[in-house]
């Protein structure tokens, strides 16, 4: 197994208190596999990615517990000098906003050369040659002229291609892509996603795709983790998750999306209420305040992530005291006696 994350806890210290950003997160990712972490803002998906990269800001963030085993060694306990060797060479990351991840005062070629020379001994001519090759690899026209350009002279889509060139320059084993196409238009998104698929599949690069976009999840990944309030609430093979979601939050997300691919779905069932307050300590299930399926125990006990009974055991797991049944998953709301058939009128508390 290439990457094994076990019981990961990430804390942020802020003036208002401690934020429990990531809680007991565990998952595995193998070579050539693509895994999505999906969730809304503040769910801990980005913090999980940064923890693996060793890029959590040390001034106010810490890994409070857990292991991140990458090719056998625990990254959490690795000294920064060793981590620096791994970062960029074995694991690399692309971010949502390519403008802020590129240095505005250095040429594209210089930034590619910097990434290469951090890990490889190459002379100047060889670096330039490699930089041009990399730009060609990510489909940038006239790469020998592009190396002279500055980031602001490039469009958003081109900048994200450059970021991919830098991230994949040293053929890493794992690519972490954090909302890589969220800032891009849909036709450009299609170009960039096709490029990611092409470049990673060819080399067997494992991809951890962090996104809020369930369409991107459906098109790009084999497995999914759904996160809410720092917890993994459900994990499954991508097709299973969309076919047969078990957690009320997953069902809520799927029913919150208008579907132009499915005209029979002409009503949305929103998740009521507002996202959780990151400073408030969680007692019970973090989703309970917004959940139409909640029962008494949900207020007091936070359910662990357990393999589901129906569905393939090892791969589909859910953290829920009262999972959604098949008929309810289609409707988007509880159908059992004792539960409100439709959620109360739209108000965020």
């Amino acid at each position, binding site marked *: 197994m290439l990457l094994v994350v076990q019981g990961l806890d990430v804390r942020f210290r802020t003036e208002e208190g401690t934020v429990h950003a990531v809680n007991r997160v565990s998952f595995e990712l193998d070579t050539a596999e693509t895994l999505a972490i999906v969730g*809304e*803002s503040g769910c801990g998906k980005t913090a999980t990615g940064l923890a693996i990269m060793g890029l959590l800001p040390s001034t106010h963030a810490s890994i409070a517990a857990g292991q991140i085993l990458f090719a056998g060694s625990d990254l959490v306990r690795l000294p920064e000098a060793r981590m620096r060797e791994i970062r960029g060479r074995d694991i690399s990351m692309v971010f949502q906003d390519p403008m802020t991840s590129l240095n505005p005062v250095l040429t594209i070629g210089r930034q590619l050369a910097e990434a290469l020379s951090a890990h490889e001994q190459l002379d100047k001519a060889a670096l330039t040659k490699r930089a041009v090759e990399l730009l060609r690899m990510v489909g940038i026209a006239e790469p020998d002229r592009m190396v002279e350009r500055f980031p602001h002279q490039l*469009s958003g*889509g*081109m900048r994200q291609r450059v970021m991919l060139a830098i991230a994949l320059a040293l053929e890493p084993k794992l690519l972490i892509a954090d909302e890589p196409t969220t800032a891009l*238009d*849909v*036709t*450009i*998104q*299609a*170009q960039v*996603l*096709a490029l990611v698929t092409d470049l990673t599949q060819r080399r067997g690069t494992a991809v951890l795709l962090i996104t*809020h*976009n*369930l*369409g*991107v*999840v*459906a*098109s*790009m990944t084999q497995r999914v983790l759904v996160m809410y309030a720092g917890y993994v609430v459900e994990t499954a093979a*991508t*097709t299973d998750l*969309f*076919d047969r979601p078990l957690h009320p939050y997953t069902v*809520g*997300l*799927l*029913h*919150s*999306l*208008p*579907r*132009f*691919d*499915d*005209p029979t779905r*002409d009503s*949305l*069932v*929103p*998740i*009521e209420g*507002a*996202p959780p307050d990151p400073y408030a300590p969680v007692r019970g299930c973090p989703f309970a305040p*917004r959940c139409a399926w909640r029962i008494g125990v949900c207020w007091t006990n936070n359910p662990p992530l357990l393999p589901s009974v129906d569905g393939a055991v090892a791969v589909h797991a859910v953290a829920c005291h009262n999972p959604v049944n098949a008929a309810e998953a289609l409707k988007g709301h509880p159908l059992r006696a004792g539960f409100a058939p439709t959620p109360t*009128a*739209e*108000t*965020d508390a």
Partner: protein
Amino acid sequence: MKTVNPEVRAGPNAIPPPLLAVEGLAVHFPVTTGFLWRRSIGAVRAVDGVTFDLHYGQTLGLVGESGSGKSTTGRALVRLNIPSAGSVRLEGREILGEGNDATADLRRRVQMIFQDPYSSLNPRMTVGAIIGEPLGIHRLGSTAERRARVLELLDIVGLPRRAADRFPHQFSGGQRQRIGIARALALRPDLVIADEPISALDVSIQAQILNLMKRLQKDLGLAYLFISHDLAAVRYISNRIMVMYLGRIVEIADSAELYTRPLHPYTVALLSAAPVPNPRIERNRERIILTGEMPSPSEPPRGCRFRSRCWLCRRLGDPEECRAMEPELTSMRPGRSVACHFSDLIDGSPEQTAAPANPGQARP
């Protein structure tokens, strides 16, 4: 004073004019050079001849990518961008280039909701003052009446009444968007222009706002111009949809038809590019990946503006028509218009039938 509109005056059998009739609307931003003596050296033709009607109580969707001119179009209708040319008639009355009376009335009857619920609310005003401000500007009602109206508006958008005395930063993004909606409704408008109203919100909150907008439309008889890059959201809320590319409308269709039977190669490509939350469809999809990016609106390509990226034009070997002539938005039948020389080749093509909304696509 209300002016009688000319079409009503025309006789009892005249068809009532649409709520909003836009014709040849253009917004050009000058590109200038020089320091003290600025010279105009060109223009960004952000909106370049846009024509459409919007009817009472209906939702017209406007989709396009960044730089298509969709937001500029919306803003021009409330004169946040001053149009360079064209005509905009509200109930048949021209509202461009007329005196202040018409503008004031327009400003009351056409309101706007913005994308970013963080920057569009004044952080130093209470929510009550924000929602009540339009009433003050238009000098409507006494202080007590305005306060009562604010509380009523909070009820309407599903916020607690105590919200009136709080400040925007005490609310989540979804709640702030409700505040923005309440402010837009204060003057009882007929038309609300919603510019990417859900784009800054989380998925679970987007659905709340879409449902709220649908309910308000039903209860208050509002018409919407719903501007968005999100094809699925536009489909959900709109009766009719127009697609914009580089300052021009390339296609107008009824909501369902646009997705099952797109007639413009750009619409086909947009639908093909958008990933849908269905792994079974996604697994087997052949995407049309457009090459390149949208050209600059200061130098649109000659002939058809989509030509530089058009997959159909390329397949046809870059025909003379596309290079020489800009296709006009042509009515195929009532309510259905398209601006393409070769749209008859799209109809029934495998690319068109591959649209994910078509029956025959795998669906669990």
